[in-house]
Every structure is written in structure tokens, then in C-alpha cells.
């Protein structure tokens, strides 16, 4: 952080000013001229919050993708399928038992188990053959998509939200004033706030695990320099299996999360695979903080884009990607 400030003083100032502007836009009531130019504050705040919570979901999916890629150079194009599979399983479990938490547990364990089977049964046999591994993941995604279509059909499903997360809660943000002068506070769905908090906790836990535990340090060392990892005599296969299980499990959990506040249907797998790709390309391949930054950026651009430039919402997202590729091909927080 300090080194960044030292190296790029101008950029630091710009980022700081941008953050202050954003904070001011969120916290203070908007003056009339601003509401005239870019619509009401409520719309903007809603888009920002939707963007950040969508980013939280993207982070859950993309963090596993980026870890697997960073450590094993395996572009897991079946990652979106793991997301959707986890979501469907979670839906089925919560539908039968009525227990939301059990849905997460089952989705995580089932997808982690699938990840372990894939790593041991498939990818270990073709280590170092990056292209062949990628081709295998394409095949797996085709097969899984058809299996899921077979079992769950083409309908839309939504995971039931538990009672205490129903409805909206008041946030300490003033969106405007009533005619009698009392402030109007922003209302926001509780389940989305929950997702945001949960993602932050997952992110912090991952950061701690990677920076404070022995296995985490090995993984980080492996991402930076894979030959060194095998040279240190670590049981590298065990680390690989653990990472693949964690990444796949996270995708499953994300599927339940996504199934709770969005919907599950065929095609969602591709959408979230692409989201992971873009997030990781923007944030920096193999970097967890990069995945977080990329996820929030992409989430925000999608939501703000769909409010302010509805016809070109997707284009803004990909424009970010193209700009990053053109000027910083290793990603915003990727190692050059």
C-alpha cells in the first residue's frame, strides 16, 4: 500500500479523490442540481448497493477460479457448471428440509467432493498440459450442463430465503427529506446485506488462511513460483487437491447464494463462468485481492450501466476489460 503511494503519487491522489466523491455521494443528501442531472439519489444508491452485492457474489465465484488458475494453471471452464450444480443441489435440499444453512453445507461438500474427484481422477494425469486440461473442463461443462438439464429441467428455481432475512432493513443513509422535513432513510433487502457481509467474511478468512497459515503460504509461494514449491519437498499433490476442493466448494456455495437472490436455470452456468473470467482478467490472474477488486468493479459497472446506459450495460463491462488488457495485461493487481 505504502509502496503504491510512493510509486504512483498522482494515481493515489486520484483514487483518494474518487473514494471521497463516492462517499459524499452515498452519505450526504443530494442537492437539487445533482438530482436534476442524474436522476434521484435513491436510484443511484440502489444501483451502487446492487453493484456491490453482485460484486460480492462474483467474488465468491471468481476467488475459487483464480486460486485454481493461479496455482495449477488450470483454466477451469467447468467452474460455472460447479456454481449451477451447487445452486440446484442447495435448492433441492432447502426445498426438502426447509433448512437454508443445510443447503450451503451440502452444496459446499458435494462440489468440493466433485472437485477432489476431478483433480485426482482427471487433472493429475495431465499435469503441465494446460491446453488438454482446459479441453477436459470444456467437455465436463458440456456433460454437466446436460445432466442438470436432465434432472432439473429448464425451469427457473429460487432458493427460499429464511424468515429472518425477509423484507428490507433501514440503512443509515438519507436519500431525501419528506415535506415535513424528516429524513427518509434508505431501505434495502436484508438478504443482500447478508450476502455482502458473508462475502467479506469469506474474503477475510481466505486472506488470513493464505497469509497466516503454513498451507496458505505454500499456496501463495506456489502461485508465484511453482517450481520452488515442488523443490521444497511439499506434498504438492495434496496442496493441489485442497485448493481444487476449496475452489469448487466455493463455487457451490456461491450457487446457493446466487440461487437465493437471483434464479437458477440453464445458461446461468455460462453467465457465471464468463463473469469469473472477466473478473479475473480485470483483477489479475491468481490474485485474491485482485478478484475482490475486479468483482466489485464489474458488479458496479453492470448495475450502474443498466441504470444509466441500459442499452450498453454489457459493453461498459467489457470496455473495462479491454482497457485493462490494453494498458495492464497482467490485470490491475496481477504480478507483472
Amino acid at each position, binding site marked *: 500500500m505504502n509502496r503504491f503511494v510512493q510509486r504512483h503519487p498522482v494515481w493515489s491522489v486520484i483514487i483518494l479523490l474518487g473514494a471521497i466523491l463516492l462517499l459524499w455521494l452515498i452519505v450526504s443528501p443530494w442537492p437539487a442540481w445533482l438530482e436534476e442531472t442524474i436522476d434521484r439519489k435513491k436510484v443511484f444508491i440502489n444501483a451502487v448497493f446492487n453493484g456491490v452485492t453482485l460484486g460480492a457474489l462474483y467474488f465468491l465465484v471468481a476467488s475459487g477460479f483464480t486460486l485454481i488458475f493461479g496455482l495449477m*494453471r488450470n*483454466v477451469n*471452464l467447468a467452474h460455472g457448471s460447479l456454481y449451477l450444480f451447487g445452486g440446484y443441489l442447495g435448492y433441492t435440499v432447502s426445498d426438502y428440509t426447509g433448512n437454508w444453512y443445510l443447503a450451503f453445507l451440502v452444496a459446499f461438500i458435494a462440489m468440493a467432493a466433485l472437485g477432489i474427484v476431478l483433480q485426482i481422477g482427471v487433472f493429475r494425469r495431465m499435469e503441465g*498440459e*494446460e*491446453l*488438454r486440461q*482446459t*479441453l*477436459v473442463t*470444456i*467437455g*465436463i*461443462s*458440456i*456433460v454437466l*450442463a*446436460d*445432466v442438470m*438439464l*436432465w434432472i432439473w429441467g429448464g425451469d427457473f428455481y429460487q432458493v427460499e430465503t429464511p424468515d429472518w432475512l425477509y423484507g428490507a432493513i433501514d440503512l443509515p443513509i438519507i436519500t431525501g427529506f419528506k415535506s415535513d422535513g424528516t429524513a427518509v432513510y434508505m431501505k434495502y433487502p436484508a438478504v443482500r446485506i447478508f450476502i455482502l457481509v458473508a462475502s467479506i467474511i469469506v474474503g477475510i478468512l481466505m486472506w488470513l488462511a493464505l497469509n497466516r497459515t503454513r498451507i496458505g503460504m505454500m499456496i501463495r509461494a506456489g502461485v508465484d513460483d511453482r517450481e520452488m514449491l515442488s523443490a521444497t519437498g511439499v506434498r504438492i499433490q495434496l496442496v493441489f487437491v485442497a485448493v481444487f476442493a476449496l475452489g469448487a466448494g466455493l463455487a457451490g456455495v456461491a450457487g446457493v447464494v446466487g440461487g437465493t437472490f437471483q434464479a437458477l436455470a440453464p445458461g446461468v452456468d*455460462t453467465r457465471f463462468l*464468463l463473469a469469473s*473470467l*472477466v473478473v*479475473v*482478467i480485470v483483477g489479475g*490472474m491468481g490474485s485474491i485481492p485482485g478478484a475482490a477488486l475486479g468483482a466489485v468493479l464489474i458488479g458496479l459497472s453492470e448495475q450502474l450501466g443498466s441504470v444509466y446506459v441500459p*442499452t*450498453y*450495460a*454489457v*459493453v461498459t*463491462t*467489457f470496455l473495462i*476489460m*479491454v482497457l485493462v*488488457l*490494453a494498458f495492464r*495485461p*497482467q490485470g490491475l493487481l496481477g504480478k507483472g
Partner: protein
Amino acid sequence: MAVLDQDRPGAGSGAREASRAELPAWLRRIHPVVWLLALFLLFVPAFTNSFIQFQIFGWAFLLGMIALSLMFLAGYGGMVSLVQMTVACVAGYMTAIFGASAVESISLFWPWWVAVPVAIVIAVIFGTITGALAVRTTGIYTIMITLAIAAAFYYFGEQNYSILNGHQGFNSVHAPVLFGVDLHDATPFYYLSLSLATLSYFAVLYVSRSPFGLALQGIRDNPRRMAAIGFNVTAHRIAAYAFAAFIAAVAGILLTWQNGQISPFTAGIGPVIDILVIAVIGGIGHPIGAFIGAIVYVVLRTFAIDILHNIGLDPSRFNMLVGLGFLAIVFFSPDGILGLWSRWRSSRSGAGLARVTGGGRGRDVE
């Protein structure tokens, strides 16, 4: 990247083949087969109906050309680009926009001999820019970046109504009538696509032994060394994208004429991945693999549902069949059907077995 390891036909350049007292063994062995195949392809319209000519062979030639452009980048350049189908669709869209279509508010109704070159130029520019972005990172990153760009185009097509007419796309984009011959008729279209596919196949073969093609293979094997003998590696890679884009663009225009329409659906993630599947099934080490893969794919696409139905299986499990077949190929023969073929041949001759290591293709080296 063992999949991309491939043999150089006969391990000799054209210049030296001529100097040999006799033709290399592989050439003598292949020749009758090639002649038979050429004869067969020439006379297909004599004994097939228009459906076979138009929907089976025509489609396979065009998909084969797009897969060929991927093969050129992947097999010779080591760059697995998933954007080739998108380039083809850009060309298709541009013919619809500059030429004639049912969307009169957008189409400019230029004559086809203006619209087609313009469409090709725009598609090549698109392919080149994509390449310039993709070559900034290398190796397996290329797949991710090109897939993301392909997806961007798909979503752009779905959302943009002012230029690309959104979800509907363009209908009634027809092949022109040339010297009184309607190229949209089955037999003329068959010969048109056959000749263009043949041309692009031999063009790729020829270029692979030219300085440009050799340099590309050198870059695949060792980019750092290429720079150390005076080659601008980045410029060469981008030029390869441009060349591949040209082939894909020509195929894309024909594909649009064949369908009579172009819409985002044609450029979707499925079709984009299918091109890679075709190239891999056929064998990504040699240009002919693209066409072998294409014919297998087209036959499966067209008849598998009926076959599944007839033998009492659920026809809707078609995709699972494709996925499992693809997995089997990747597992057991990374060099596709070509790899299976050369393995079968070398096991029959018994000599080349030692060279077939790790699923690689046997080499025809004396």
C-alpha cells in the same frame, strides 16, 4: 502443450523435396487416396440430393474453414483463439448491413461485390485488433481472453438494436446470382464452398512452409529465441491473427448466405466452443484435421438425434453424447482422429510405435 506438438509433414521443406530422387514415402502412400477423395468430392452432386450437398457438405466445408483458421493459430502459432467464430459472424453481419437483408431500416443495399470485400476488411480488422489484445499475454491466457471477447460480442449483439438489430439479427441475407447461376441453389453453393475450402486448405499448407509460417512455428516453439534472431514476435503473432481472420471472414459470409440469416445466436458461446471442439476432434496438428472434425460434427448434429431415437434412447441427450465423445478424444487421443489414424497405421507397420509416445502422433521420418 503436448496437444500442439505436431509433426511437420515429411520433415522437409518444399525446396528440398524437389531435390530428392523420389517422392517421400508418405506422399506416395497418400496420393491415390487424395485423388480418390478429390474425385469423390467433385462428383458428390451427381449422386446426392440437395439436402446432403447444402446442409451436410456445405455446412461442413464452412465450419471446417473456421476451424482451419483456429488450427492455423493453435497448431502453428500455439495460440488457441476462441474468437474465430466471432470473426466469421462479424463478416456475416457486415454483409447483411452493407448488402441486402429484410431489415430495410439498417441494410444499405450495396451491390454484393462491394459489400463482401468491405465485410471481409472489417472482419479482418476486428480479428487483428482482437489478436493485438490477446497477444499481450500468452499461453493459456489466450483462451480466457478470446472467450471473454467472443462473449462480449454475443451480448453486444443481443443488446444493440441500432446497428446489429438485437436478438432478431438479419433475415433474408441471400447469396448473389452470378452469371445467371443462383449461388443459393444447392449445387452451385456446394461447389462454391468446396472450392473456397480447398483454396484455404492449400493456402494454409503453403504458408506453413513460407518464411512467415516457419517463423510462426518458431515462435510457438520458442518466442524468446525468435526475438534473439531478429524477429518481432508480437508483430508476427498479430499478423497470424489477421491471416486467420481472413479465412474465418470468408467462411462467415458463406455461412450467413447458407443460413439466409445472421443473429447473435450464431455467435453464442456454444458455437464458439464448438469450433474448438471440431478442431480438436479432427486433430489440431494438421490442416486436414479441421475438415475431418467438421464432417464428423455436422453428421452427428444432423443425424444423431434420429439415431438416438431409433435405438430407443432419449434424443435430448445429444449434448451428453457430444461431451462424452469429446472427453474420450481428449483423453485417449490428444491429436484427434488424425492421431488415431496415424497410431493405427504405425501399429500396423510396427515400426513407428516407439515414436508414438504420450499420445503424440507418430512422425513420418525416415
